[in-house]
């Protein structure tokens, strides 16, 4: 009976691409098993086949941390508000890792799956979406490294840790939005694939990964927080470190995260129908 009811909702209208149809969330939900399978496939291929396997998930953020610690903490001697520079950098990297892992993968997700897209129908949005799940794994590993560092150095962990789902949730939303956007952009403009790595390389300096946002002059602060990563990183630190002071401008980041998500979804819906023809 249940299956029959389900079938009734499956009248599908196929229209020319000019007619705008928004992503069908019911359908995406029906394909949820595929999301899990795709994420599992990537996870296995990425880590299980290499000699050091899952260790790479730990080694990669550690190397980034050491580099940033050396440049910003030791050479530039950035004021990290009383937090040990290594821990400070690592806390920035937890958030940064999510975006820096997700965006190149999402940007490539549609283009590299051209064979599937040309032969089988499935909600295309699952391709950038599952990359977000995989990036969460890297973020979780970086998070564990950070907590171990804090325990090792005897740093107190703030009771505000319970608020952690808030910045992480907004991170997922803004990251997914950016993922949808870059995935669709890479289909429409192939040059975008060459631009994206530079944007990400620049991002680590634009975002408060290795320095606190309070270092940014007040005159530019509002503009600075248009970047969702800035606000999310700051709120994340506020959840971990007791004395961390938040800028009143972080709400701008929250708003821009949601705008990015909606914009990403809309642009992706618009591009989805022509993808098989453009690839």
């Amino acid at each position, binding site marked *: 009976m249940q299956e029959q009811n389900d079938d009734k909702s499956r*009248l599908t209208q196929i229209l020319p691409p000019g007619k705008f149809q928004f992503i069908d969330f019911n359908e995406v939900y029906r394909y949820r098993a595929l999301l899990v399978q795709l994420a599992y496939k990537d996870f296995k291929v990425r880590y299980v086949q290499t000699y050091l396997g899952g260790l790479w998930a730990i080694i990669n953020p550690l190397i980034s941390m050491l580099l940033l610690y050396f440049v910003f903490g030791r050479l530039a001697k950035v004021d990290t508000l009383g937090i040990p520079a290594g821990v400070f950098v690592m806390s920035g990297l937890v958030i940064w890792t999510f975006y820096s892992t997700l965006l190149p993968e999402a940007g490539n997700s549609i283009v590299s799956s051209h064979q599937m897209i040309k*032969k089988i129908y499935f909600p295309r949005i699952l391709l950038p979406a599952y990359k977000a799940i995989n990036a969460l794994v890297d973020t979780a590993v970086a998070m564990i490294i950070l907590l171990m560092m804090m325990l090792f150095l005897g740093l107190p962990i703030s009771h505000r840790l319970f608020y952690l789902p808030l910045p992480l949730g907004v991170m997922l939303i803004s990251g997914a939005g950016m993922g949808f956007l870059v995935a669709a952009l890479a289909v429409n403009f192939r040059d975008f694939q060459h631009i994206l790595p530079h944007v990400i390389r620049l991002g680590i300096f634009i975002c408060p990964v290795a320095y606190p946002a309070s270092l940014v002059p007040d005159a530019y602060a509002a503009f600075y927080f248009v970047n969702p990563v800035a606000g999310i990183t700051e709120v994340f630190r506020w959840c971990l470190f007791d004395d961390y002071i938040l800028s009143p401008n972080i709400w701008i980041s929250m708003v821009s995260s949601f705008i990015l998500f909606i914009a990403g979804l809309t642009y992706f819906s618009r591009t989805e129908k022509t993808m098989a023809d453009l690839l």
Partner: protein
Amino acid sequence: MRSTKGETVGIIGGNGAGKSTLLRILSRITYPSSGRAWTNGRVSSLLEVGTGFHYELTGRENVYLNGTLLGMTAPEVKKRMDEIIAFSGIESFIDTQVKHYSSGMFVRLAFSVSAHLNTDILILDEVLAVGDAGFQQKSLEKVAEVVREGKTVLFASHSMSAVRNLCQKSILLHQGKLMAYGDSPHTINQYLDLISTSRDYRFSGPWKENITLKGIDVNGHDIKINQAVSPLEKLTIDLHFTHELTEPFRVTLSFYCDGYRCFTLHDTCFEATGSGGFTSTYVIPAETLRPGRWVIAVGGHNAVMNQWFWNEQADVLEVMEHYSPSFEKINLGLINIQAQSQRKIH
């Protein structure tokens, strides 16, 4: 056109007629530039077997990945897992990575997943041409079973016999337009009319650019003029080619009736011809072909058969209904062969 539940519709037409485009639109891979289509129920399309398989994953993991990609939910895949593995016949390798599979094993497993989809509308594009003959037979039976279950099946094919056997109705596409829609035998006949008037001599295959079929002569006259022959006359068929191939090859001439390849003739085996033009001649004894419409397929290949060219529907030869006491008018099959028979009274 409209197709209802439980109908099996064949889609026929020459290369570039729009068969694949129609299937791609109905499977929502690409979208129409104008016009609309509606589908009611779960649509699964098999435009190619094995898309989305990942070589690093095991067979079982790939069944999950491919199954969900084709629209199954995780419990549905789980429920059908044993059936899928049994149908593929590769039980002992199911937990081995697919990269270690032979291409035959790969195709078996991939088709097996596709064959066990729980779907209302199944869209098929020549996917039956996979695997060895035994597996092809199994695949065709599976499709027939899907048809019996009352599913709607859309089936694009070059194989007239498969269309005739599987589909009650067929549509004929030509240059993106619907030319005919009706009972399969009727539509197939219209398609044969179309082949004989369009005369598309282009080849497919690795050598398609290197050899050109210039013309076909029947008993010394161009087939355009001499399309209908008497069953009583000896047939001399000349195929005129130009080519730039250096490797020795032979040219084949096949005769199809009702979609079945009835017989194939070869010219001189594997002789280097030099570059330029040549004519291959085939002689068929009188009273061999029985009345009907014969589709002529022209092709060729090198000694190891890894290089070839092929045109399955080069032209149509009509053998006229001309009956005499030696050539009876009852259905005696497709061809007459030289044989002897006698009766001994006890």
